[in-house]
């Protein structure tokens, strides 16, 4: 198998201790769970998406586990500005604060709360199941550019997380780049639904949700590959990664680092497992692998 040399990882203005990042919204609601993921070997962590107001999220069921993935509609539950408290024990650690809002002003307001504490910002313009937020911003290039600019003013690295639920993801990627993004994260979940036969209704409280996990890996690879061809800022791959091989495949598609979410289910030690399979002193230099499938 293909292995990589260890070494400092610089991506989109952030220094990571390895290429593996905790994805937004997974075990990221409290400072202590973020700290745990760092202890478990994550190279950096992304928080739960924080918005302008506290939200309880959608009624349950919020998540069902499928044979080859996970379907969720959490509905962006978040403590809003109180999340600042959670970051105190994390000072000095690579913590990327995921934020969402309904317009550039809201993005800017939320960012302002974390202007001192965040290592970087990740803009969630891609959640497929929260009306007025997420993908409802992220399908509109002008809004994406404006929201990115609004956060770029804080002089922290800005990553923009994209939805695959668009006709052409590269248009959105370019809009983020034009807005001053330091990196693109691809992808958020794929809009999806399952129905309970016996209940004769959608299983999620919100009816619609987002598909993550193994099922979407080939879609994520495609999106990363497309963005790498069209944009000039680093791409961070996300979607269905669960092994060192998956990480390498994402990197070959063009990812400079990766985020991992669903695969942590039942395996909080996954970061360390992947690291030990991925890194080797005799491995390739990451730059030899990143984007090599484009040649």
């Amino acid at each position, binding site marked *: 198998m293909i292995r990589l040399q260890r070494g400092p990882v610089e991506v989109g203005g952030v220094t990571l201790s390895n290429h593996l990042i905790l994805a937004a919204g997974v075990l990221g609601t*409290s400072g202590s*769970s973020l700290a745990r993921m760092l202890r478990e070997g994550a190279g950096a962590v992304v928080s739960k998406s924080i918005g302008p107001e506290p939200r309880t999220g959608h009624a349950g069921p919020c998540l069902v586990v499928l044979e080859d993935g996970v379907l969720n509609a959490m509905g962006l539950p978040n403590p809003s500005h109180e999340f600042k408290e959670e970051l105190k024990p994390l000072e000095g650690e690579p913590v990327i604060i995921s934020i969402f809002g309904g317009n550039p002003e809201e993005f800017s307001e939320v960012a302002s709360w974390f202007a001192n504490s965040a290592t970087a910002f990740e803009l969630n313009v891609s959640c497929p199941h929260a009306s007025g937020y997420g993908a409802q911003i992220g399908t509109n290039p002008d809004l994406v550019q404006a929201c990115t600019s609004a956060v770029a003013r804080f002089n922290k690295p800005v990553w923009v997380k994209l939805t695959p639920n668009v006709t052409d993801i590269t248009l959105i990627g370019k809009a983020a780049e034009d807005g001053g993004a330091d990196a693109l994260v691809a992808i958020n979940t794929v809009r999806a639904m399952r129905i309970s036969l016996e*209940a004769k209704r959608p299983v999620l409280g919100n009816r619609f949700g987002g598909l993550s996990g193994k099922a979407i890996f080939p879609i994520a690879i495609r999106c990363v590959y497309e963005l790498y061809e069209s944009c000039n800022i680093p791409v961070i791959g996300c979607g269905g990664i669960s092994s060192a091989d998956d990480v390498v495949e994402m990197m070959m598609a063009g990812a400079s680092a990766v985020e991992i979410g669903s695969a942590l289910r039942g395996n909080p030690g996954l970061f360390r497992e992947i690291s030990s399979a991925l890194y080797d002193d005799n491995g390739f230099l990451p730059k030899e692998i990143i984007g090599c499938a484009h040649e």
Partner: protein
Amino acid sequence: MSDNLPVMVNITRIVEESTSVKTVFFDKKFEVRPGQFVMVWVPGVDEIPMALSGPDSITVQEVGDATIALGNLKPGELIGIRGPFGNGFSPNGNILAIAGGVGAAPLLPLARQYSKITFLLGARSAPDLLYTRILSECTNLMIATDDGSVGYHGFVAGLLREMDLSIYDSVCVCGPELMMKSVLDVLDAKGALKMGQFSLHRYMKCGVGLCGSCCIDPEGLCVCRDGPVFRGDILQKSELGRYHRDACGRRS
């Protein structure tokens, strides 16, 4: 492996245990370790965590939308079950069970499964005591009520403080947060923290260790997956009894 959608079960009967507590029986049995829980879907309302009080039952205290809706369902109506989830109790040797209020639910299967359990059952008042008939049959039952209407007058922790714990190997606890904190303190005082097993309640959404809503400080453990049952020594420096997080993730 296959999709893990909620399994819909038919309600077969509903038993009133006390004014605001009902046991809901359904037509499918789940294999469960005492202390494991399921996510119960009340279609059109919400999905909430519940201990299985038996292989085919949950015991519900009506406190809000979903629990009241559950209590109002009629035999023949459907609810969905995901799980069982979590670790459950792992008692050994001589067992002391301590239950407060509806916290008796996950301890009932324990009482049924193990012989010679001593069971401390606490509640506000006599009519709030759960399962007294069955518990008095299969356990050495001791009762405490806050108002002294029956049994020991006071909290279970008070009763516990007066007991000799040296004869027990495991202490399995479930009840309101503050009751559990008091029990934890008593165990601590008696140098018996490690034999304590506490079943925690935290806001749960996914039940499978992904969403993070149930995580407890300071270790970031998931109550849904690393718990809900934790050893006393692990909880000693935790948030237990001090704060918890609400549906938004705010501390309260």
